[in-house]
């Protein structure tokens, strides 16, 4: 990918979508920090992969950004405001600009595929429109186009629980893009999928976010996938950042520092 050579921190449309995390700390139980003083600056474009062992706080970090988890301390500056301080309406307004893709897809099972995609617009619409399913025609057109783009155009009207894992994750991606986001978070998007589908899903996220020049932060277990798709890799261990650099700089010694041991590297 030559894009990396000409990598600029600001997107082509001139909007700065960078995220500055400063001294982020999260304790679920007082005194036991899952995230210890994480500081990261994530440029406003390209894919950043966060790797690290289970339970090391990757998921917590990503969930802090859209405040599904409330951080204990620290700040997260994004598009002119500190995400850590937002509440109520301001928080919802910030959330609707941050798309999220989940490990277990988290589609509303009993809603149709198109309804799930349209959920991405709920932050922009009054409740009665959701209640009566009176979505604006422009939103409906865009939802169909996004479903076509993820290859599920003909599945629009079937219920989400009828889909396979890979198909569900495609719907999850369409839902996140439907928000017209300035940032996409992906929390282990491939961990419940087979290897081939995992690659397809990562390609889809990279391509669709790349077209729109939106930054992506992805938690991922699979180091090979991270190497293949990310522009930057952040390695975490025990709640701290222990590696930060481009994929080609990631060596076995770093992986040992991140995951510990070496037998698994053979």
């Amino acid at each position: 990918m030559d894009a990396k050579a000409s990598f600029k921190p600001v997107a082509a449309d001139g909007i700065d979508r960078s995220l500055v995390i400063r001294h982020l700390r999260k304790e679920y139980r007082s005194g036991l920090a899952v995230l210890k003083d994480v500081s990261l600056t994530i440029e406003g474009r390209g894919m950043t992969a966060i790797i690290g062992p289970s339970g090391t706080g990757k998921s917590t970090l990503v969930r802090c950004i859209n405040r599904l988890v409330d951080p204990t301390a620290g700040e997260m500056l994004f598009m002119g405001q500190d995400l850590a301080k937002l509440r109520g309406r301001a928080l919802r307004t910030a959330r609707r600009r941050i798309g999220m893709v989940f490990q277990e897809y988290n589609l509303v099972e009993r809603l149709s595929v198109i309804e799930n995609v349209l959920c991405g617009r709920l932050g922009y619409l009054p409740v009665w429109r959701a209640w009566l399913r009176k979505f604006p025609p422009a939103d409906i057109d865009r939802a169909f186009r996004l479903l076509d783009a993820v290859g599920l155009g003909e599945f629009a009207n079937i219920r989400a629980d009828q889909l396979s894992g890979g198909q569900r994750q495609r719907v999850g991606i369409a839902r996140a893009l439907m928000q017209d986001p300035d940032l996409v978070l992906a929390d282990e998007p491939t961990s419940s999928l087979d290897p081939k589908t995992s690659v397809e899903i990562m390609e889809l996220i990279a391509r669709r976010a790349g077209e729109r020049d939106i930054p992506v932060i992805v938690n991922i277990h699979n180091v090979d996938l991270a190497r293949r798709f990310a522009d930057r890799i952040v390695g975490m261990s025990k709640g701290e950042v222990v590696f930060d650099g481009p994929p080609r700089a990631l060596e076995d010694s770093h992986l040992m520092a991140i995951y510990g041991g070496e037998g698994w590297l053979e």
Partner: protein
Amino acid sequence: MSDIPAPVPRRLAFPPNWPMRIGLLVLLLYVVYASTILDITWTRFVAGVSHGGRFLARMFPPDFSPDKLVLLEAGMIESLQIAVLATIFGVALSLPLGLAAARNLSPAPLAWTARTLIALCRSLHPVIVAILFVKAVGFGALAGVLALIVASMGFLSKLIGEAVEEMSMKQMEAVRATGAPFLSVVVMGVMPQVMPRFIGFSAYQLDSNLRNSALVGLVGGGGIGATLFTAFQRFDYDFVLTIVLAIIAIVMVGEIVSGWMRRLFQ
């Protein structure tokens, strides 16, 4: 080495459960005591059975004379209306109350207030509630409807609250992550998950209100119960049998309809 195995103390597969034995003995003693206090004796039972025989004989043949059928029809129609109105209003009020009672959705003070209200609705039998309403708003169908609304709210809100507490939080979390306002999260993330069960409960409640609408009439709540009570007072036991048969028929029809409704919305 000897061929005879060393004597092993016999192990008990079912050791005696003394607390259970003592408990059963106490229960037996209490039954005997309570029967003596309440004057429940064999002689009285035998006398009662022969009275019952004479009563049953007077019920046959059931009275299907046209003037009685007019009374029966009027009473039945009123009971049906009581049941349907009570179910509709009960369902409409139970939905918000049930959502408020779900501890994974509403803040603790609201949840506990709602739970207290539900417990209050459930604490008294519909007949007692009906007596209260007859005293408050006077004889007639209004008292019956109000009593059954209270009963429906007690039953439906509790079950809806429980259904909401058992739903998948992941599906709701994904809708919340789009920046949707709270009520939109409820409409698109919560309702689809609990709707089938809600419809099932409502169908069951309609069935149960049909049965109870006959009951509240006995204490002045209008409907077929009032007709039944009058027939008893006038010793029209043959008409009593007609009414009882009609109630059985309508309850059976109600059961079939509610079963059919539940299957339809599974």
